[in-house]
């Protein structure tokens, strides 16, 4: 079997054994959901409901006139308790719609409303938009924006790499929902006019590779690309490079490279949006960590507070722990538990104190070059970190800071525990200012 990959990167302990064999199960709905009006890249939604309104599960409760946006839906039936500021997983506070559950049925009724064999492009695009579909792997780009016919695009690349430690939600989706995945891929491939679909899957998920292969073995327009187990294989640029061999120059949109990259979860959800008219009101979330009593891959309502999720999974002791939404390499540590999971939340990971990087203080760079050796972007995180820490933004820019994808490998391998990504994130807006002032 040919295994493809990219240069650089690192083997990080993957901690997937906690949940990789756990079948997807439903978590009971919470008593209250907090649905942020901005869960995607682009313009926020305007609320379509007000305090005291009754809402039905699946009802659209927020939308925007902007193209670059995606509507949000009620993930439970009940009463709107509040439209106001709440803590969101991306940090800070933002407008949210809080819904209190009522006693009515809390499941979305799945009945087929369209024949998957018979959906035209226009209809597909409309379904995806109205369903509020966004990238579910992390970037959260509104899906309908990319669903248009584009002559240049020859390849649909489905991202099943799932290179982040702990996360197994995409893995389980590929194993358990392979059929919906392949059908969803077919819909998407046809809608964008691509000639082939590649499923990029890391080889540590042999059951997923087998499940997909079993379904596509008679097709010559679909193929599984086996990827080496290496972080950050699932980042778009590195997936494209590994799977197609194409270079990904800065500023290039993937469509210009002839590829559209889609997360496998998004693909299944867009299939369900088309065929069953089911909006994106729930998703598979990996809840994991060494001290989580019931780790697993759970179908969780969008807007469920993590307090509800952790309680259901038997987490009690949290003093000095880190609760991360997303994966442990790029996810965000949350300040408290009344933060909701959103469309792009891949996981809720509970890290005990001895696992997080706080066990040591950072020191000066000792030029060990481990970050240079592992940087998947071929950058010099050591130089960048020194300049960014000191606020020498022009020097940092010279060393290509703006190309950084913030994957976190440098900080992970750094024996001096330097928070490189933090400084990079701080420096980027400053360098953008510099760049604008030069124009």
């Amino acid at each position, binding site marked *: 079997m040919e295994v493809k990959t990219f240069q650089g990167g690192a083997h990080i302990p993957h901690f997937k054994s906690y949940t990789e064999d756990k079948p997807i199960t439903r978590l009971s709905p919470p008593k209250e959901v907090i649905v942020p009006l901005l869960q995607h890249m682009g313009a926020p939604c305007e609320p379509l409901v007000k305090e005291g309104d009754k809402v039905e599960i699946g009802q659209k409760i927020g939308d925007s006139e902007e193209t670059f946006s995606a509507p949000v839906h009620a993930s439970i039936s009940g009463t709107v308790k509040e439209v106001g500021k709440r803590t969101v997983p991306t940090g800070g506070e933002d407008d949210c719609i809080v819904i209190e559950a009522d006693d009515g049925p809390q499941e979305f009724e799945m009945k087929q409303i369209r024949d998957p064999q018979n959906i035209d492009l226009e209809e597909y695009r409309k379904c995806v938009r109205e369903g509020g579909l966004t990238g579910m792997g992390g970037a959260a780009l509104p899906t309908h924006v990319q669903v248009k016919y584009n002559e240049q695009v020859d390849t649909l690349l489905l991202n099943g790499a799932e290179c982040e430690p702990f996360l197994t939600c995409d893995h389980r989706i590929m194993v358990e929902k392979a059929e919906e995945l392949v059908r969803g891929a077919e819909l998407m491939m046809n809608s964008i006019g691509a000639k082939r679909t590649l499923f990029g899957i890391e080889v540590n998920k042999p059951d997923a590779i087998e499940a997909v292969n079993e379904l596509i073995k008679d097709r010559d327009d679909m193929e599984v690309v086996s990827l080496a187990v290496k972080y950050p294989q699932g980042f778009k640029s590195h997936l494209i490079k590994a799977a197609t*061999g194409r*270079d990904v120059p800065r500023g290039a949109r993937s469509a210009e490279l002839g590829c559209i990259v889609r997360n496998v979860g998004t693909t299944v959800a867009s299939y369900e949006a088309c065929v069953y008219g089911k909006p994106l009101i729930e998703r598979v979330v990996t809840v994991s960590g060494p001290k989580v009593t019931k780790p697993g891959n759970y179908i969780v309502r969008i807007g469920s507070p993590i307090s509800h999720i952790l309680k259901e999974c038997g987490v009690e002791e949290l003093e000095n722990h880190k609760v991360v939404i997303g994966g442990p390499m*790029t996810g965000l*540590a949350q300040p408290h538990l*009344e933060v909701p999971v959103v469309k792009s939340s891949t996981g809720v990971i509970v890290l005990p104190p001895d696992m997080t990087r*706080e066990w040591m203080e950072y020191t000066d760079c000792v030029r060990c*070059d481990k970050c240079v050796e592992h940087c998947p972007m*071929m950058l010099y995180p050591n130089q960048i970190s020194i300049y960014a820490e000191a606020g020498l933004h022009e020097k940092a820019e010279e060393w290509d800071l703006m190309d950084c994808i913030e994957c*976190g490998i440098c900080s992970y391998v750094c024996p001096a525990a330097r928070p490189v990504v933090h400084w990079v994130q701080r420096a980027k807006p400053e360098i953008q200012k510099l760049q604008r002032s030069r124009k």
Partner: protein
Amino acid sequence: MVSDTQKLIISPSPHLKAKDTVGSAMRDVFIALLPVVAVAIYFYHVYAAFLIGVCLVTAVLTELLFRKLSGKKPTLHDWSALLTGLFVALLFTATTPWWKAAIATFIAVGIAKELMGGLGWNRFNPALFGRVAMILLAPIFAFVDDWFAPLATYMGSVDVATQATPLAMLNAGMEMPPLGQLFAAFPGGALSEVSPLALLIGAAYLFYRKHITWHIPAAMIVTVAVLTLIAGENPLYHLFTGGMMIGAFFMATDWVTSPFTDRGKLLFGACIGILVVIFRVGLSPTEGVAFSILIMNAFVPLIDKAMKRPSFSEPRKQTQAS
């Protein structure tokens, strides 16, 4: 019950961290030097042990002093001071007066490292800097010798310490000891020069722990071997004598004072090799390796800049079609 009062940790990603620390790496280098320390003590008995002890203590005291003066927290736990102390001791002969080794250690830790901004900011290998400073400043220290002379300690006789070093023998055209003996263990010269084999065992450990890569040692050794061969000498004698082995595997590979990239490391190693041969074949034989490494240390920023690799996002001239 999950309560709201429990304190959660918030900090930037990534949240995981590999277990390696600067301290654990420095400790590994210390461990890697233990074989050669053992051989040195075997040959020079209490002389070697005493010299090493003096340097370790001086290194620790110097770091504490300079950290105190600059108002920074002591960083003894990173093992860097101890390691520099050990390196300095290994660069001297066993019968070196203890105050000379102590002053060299003071210069290494205090001036070459702490005054430069601490570990990570030193441009020159501290131990080599301290050692070479003692050579260059020898005239000044001549009278220091006189002050300290009454403090000299007699610790029994060591016959082996007085014989010519193999490198001096090589230069004087004397009959050399058998290569095998030279490689395994042969007294003469600095403590670190007693056994290339012991150094290689330590180096193997460093490779295994991934603290060093093959690039610098290989470039250095191949360059020296080829050039001495061209000069009509037996390369093996050059490799197994003097500071060649400790220089190639322990000194030139110092994290702080070597280039970033593999290509940079190869160039760095090759240049050191060329300088070593110039020093040994053309000039005076002592401390050629030390001088060569220090000279190339100065070029590291230039090498890093010249050898900068293109970013993954840098547009390539020819785009490959799949």
